[in-house]
C-alpha cells in the first residue's frame, strides 16, 4: 500500500468516526442520570459519563465535579418528587439507598431505577462497574474500566501478599457523644481489613456496634483506623494514643493510629486499589512516618 493511500484511508476513517460521534452523543444526551451512593457516582464519573449526571446524593463527594449538580439529600432519606424534579431517565442507586417506598414511587412515575448490589469485595466492585456500565449503555467503557481495575487490584493484592504479618486492627467509624462505634463482621471496614491481610479485633460482632474504650483496649489492637472526621473529633493521633483506656494498646505505643476519608477508604469504588495498598501500609507502619493529621 502506497503511503498516500494509507493516509487517505486514515483520513477517511477519522472523518467517519468524527461524523458518527455527535450522533452517538446526541442519543446519549437524552439520558439524564441521578446517582445515589458515593461509589455509584464515582463509578459513573470513572466511566466518563459524568456529564450525564443531573443529580447526586449527599454521600457523593468524589470526584469534585459531582458537587456541581443538585444534591437530592441523604441516600437513605430520598424524596420522590425531588428526584423526579430533575427529570431523570434512570436513577442508579446503591443497595443501601432508600426508603424503598420512595424508590418504588419513582419507578411508578415511569423512571427506571437500577439497584446496584454492594457486597464489599473485589468481585463486588467489578460487578458494580459492569451493572452501572450496562445501565448507562456504556459497555465498552465498562469493559475498559473493569480490565484496568482488575489489573490494579491484582497488583495491589500481590503487594499486600508480600507484606509481613497479620496485624490486629480496630476500625472506629464515629465517636460523637456516646461510645465510639466499631466496625464488626459484614462491614466494608471488616472486608478491607481482611483484604489488607489484617485481623479485625471486633469480628465477634455484626455490623457497626458501640464499643467501650476499655473493651477496645482489652482487644489489644496493633493498629487503630478511623474516619478522618472521627480522628479530628477525638483530637488527633496523639490524643487517641494518650487516651486513658487505649494508652496501653500496642497500637497506641507504636502510634499506629490513622485517619482516612470515609468514601475513599470504605466505598469499594474505583479508588479501591489505592485504598487497599494505602490501608495495608497504614496498619503496619507508624502513623508518624505517614504524617497523618
Amino acid at each position, binding site marked *: 500500500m502506497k503511503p498516500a493511500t494509507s493516509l487517505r484511508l486514515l483520513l477517511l476513517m477519522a472523518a467517519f468516526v468524527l461524523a458518527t460521534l455527535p450522533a452517538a452523543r446526541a442519543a446519549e444526551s437524552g439520558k439524564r442520570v441521578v446517582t445515589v451512593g458515593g461509589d455509584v457516582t464515582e463509578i459513573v464519573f470513572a466511566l466518563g459519563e459524568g456529564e450525564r449526571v443531573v*443529580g447526586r446524593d*449527599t454521600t457523593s463527594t468524589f470526584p469534585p465535579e459531582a458537587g456541581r449538580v*443538585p*444534591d*437530592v*439529600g*441523604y441516600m*437513605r*432519606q*430520598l*424524596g*420522590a*418528587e*425531588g*428526584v*423526579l*424534579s*430533575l427529570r431523570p431517565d434512570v436513577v442508579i442507586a446503591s443497595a*443501601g439507598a*432508600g*426508603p424503598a*417506598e*420512595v424508590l*418504588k*414511587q419513582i419507578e*411508578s*412515575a*415511569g423512571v427506571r431505577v437500577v439497584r446496584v448490589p454492594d457486597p464489599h469485595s473485589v468481585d463486588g466492585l467489578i460487578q458494580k462497574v459492569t451493572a452501572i456500565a450496562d445501565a448507562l449503555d456504556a459497555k465498552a467503557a465498562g469493559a475498559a474500566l473493569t480490565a484496568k481495575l482488575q489489573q490494579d487490584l491484582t497488583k495491589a493484592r500481590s503487594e499486600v501478599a508480600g507484606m509481613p504479618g497479620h496485624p490486629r486492627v480496630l476500625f472506629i467509624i464515629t465517636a460523637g457523644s456516646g461510645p465510639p462505634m466499631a466496625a464488626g463482621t459484614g462491614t466494608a471496614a471488616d472486608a478491607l481489613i481482611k483484604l489488607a491481610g489484617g485481623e479485625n479485633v471486633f469480628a465477634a460482632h*455484626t*455490623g*457497626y*456496634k*458501640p464499643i467501650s474504650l476499655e473493651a477496645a483496649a482489652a482487644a489489644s489492637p496493633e493498629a487503630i483506623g478511623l474516619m478522618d472526621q472521627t480522628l479530628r473529633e477525638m483530637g488527633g493521633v496523639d490524643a487517641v494514643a494518650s487516651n486513658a483506656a487505649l494508652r496501653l494498646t500496642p497500637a497506641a505505643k507504636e502510634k499506629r493510629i490513622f485517619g482516612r476519608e470515609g468514601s475513599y477508604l470504605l466505598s469499594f469504588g474505583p479508588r479501591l486499589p489505592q485504598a487497599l495498598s494505602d490501608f495495608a501500609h497504614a496498619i503496619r507502619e507508624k502513623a508518624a512516618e505517614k504524617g497523618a493529621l
Partner: protein
Amino acid sequence: MTSAAIDVTARIRDMRAAQIRTRRLFLVCLAGGLCVASLAALVIGAVPIPLGDVFGSLSPFHDAEGQYGEIVQSIRMPRLVLGLCVGAVLGLSGAALQGLFRNPLADPGIIGVSSGAALGVAFVIVLGNAVMPGALAIAGPFALPVAAFGGGIAALLGVYTLSRRAGALSGSSLILAGIAINAIAGAALGYLSFASTDEQLRQVTFWTLGSLGRTNWASLIPAAIAMIAASVLLLRLAPVLNVYLLGEREAEHLGVNAGRLKNQVIMLSALGAGAAVAVSGIIGFVGLAAPHIVRLFAGADHRVVLPGSALLGALLLVSADLIARTAVAPAELPVGILTSALGGPFFLWLLGRYRRELL
C-alpha cells in the same frame, strides 16, 4: 320581673350570641386556611406542574398517561391525605387527653403514647420474625399499625395506672409517669437498635424521626380508616368532656360515667396516635400545641376545642410538610423540625400575650 333583671338576661344572651359567633368565625377561618393549605400542597412541589394539569389529573375523566398524573395521584395526593389525617388525629387526641387528665402538658408525645407506639413498631420489625415466624407475612400491611396501637395503648395504660396509684389523677404524677414510660420505651428502642441488622436499624430510625414521604395508597388506607374512626368518635365526646371539666365527682353527679369516658378517651387516643405513628413515625408538638392555640383564641369549650384542634393540627402538619418538601428541593427536610419551628414561636407569642389570663 323587673326591667333591670330582663336587661341583665338580655345582655347575657347577647354576650353568648357574640361568643358563639366568634367561635364559629374562628372555626370557619381554620377550615378556610386548611383548604388553602391543602390546595397549595397539591399544586406546589419540586416538580413544576401547570395548574390545569394538577386538576386535570384529579378528574375522573383524565387519561392516566404521563408523569404529571402519576406525581399528583401517587405522590402528592396520598401525602396530603396522610398529613390531614395525622395532623387532625394528633391535635384531637392531644385536646382530649388534656381535657381528660385536666393537665395542659398532656399530649400523645409527652405521656408516652408515641414512643410506646414506636416501640411496638420497632419490636415487630426487629424481633417479629424471630418470635412469630410467618406472622408478619400474614398480617401484611396491618402488622405495623396493629403493633403501634398495641404499644400506644400499653404506654397509655401504664401512665394511667402509675399516675392513678400515686394519688389524684392529675398534676405532676401524670407527667412524671409519662417521663418514666418515655425513658423505658427509649431504653427498649435503644436496645432494639443495638440488636438490629443495618436494614432493620434503618427502618426503626425512620419511625423515631417521622416523615410523610413514604406513603402509598395501600399502606395509607387501613391507617386512614383507623385515624378517621378515632377522630369521629373523639369529636362526639366533646359534651361529656365539658361536664368532666367540672371535676370527676361533679361529673358523676351530673350523670357522666367517668370510668367509661376515661376508657373511651384512652382507647381512641391510642388507636388514633398509634395509627399515625405506624404510617408517619413520631411527629411531635402538633398534639401539644394545637389545643392550646385553639383554647387561647376560642376558650375551653370542648365543642370548639376538639374540632378546632383537629383543623389546626391538620393545617400545621400540611403546611409544615409543604415547606419540608420544597425548601431544600430536590432534597427534603424532616417534617418534625418544621412542625416545631412553625408552631413553637407562635405558641410562645400566644403565651406571652395571654400570660395574665393564664396565670
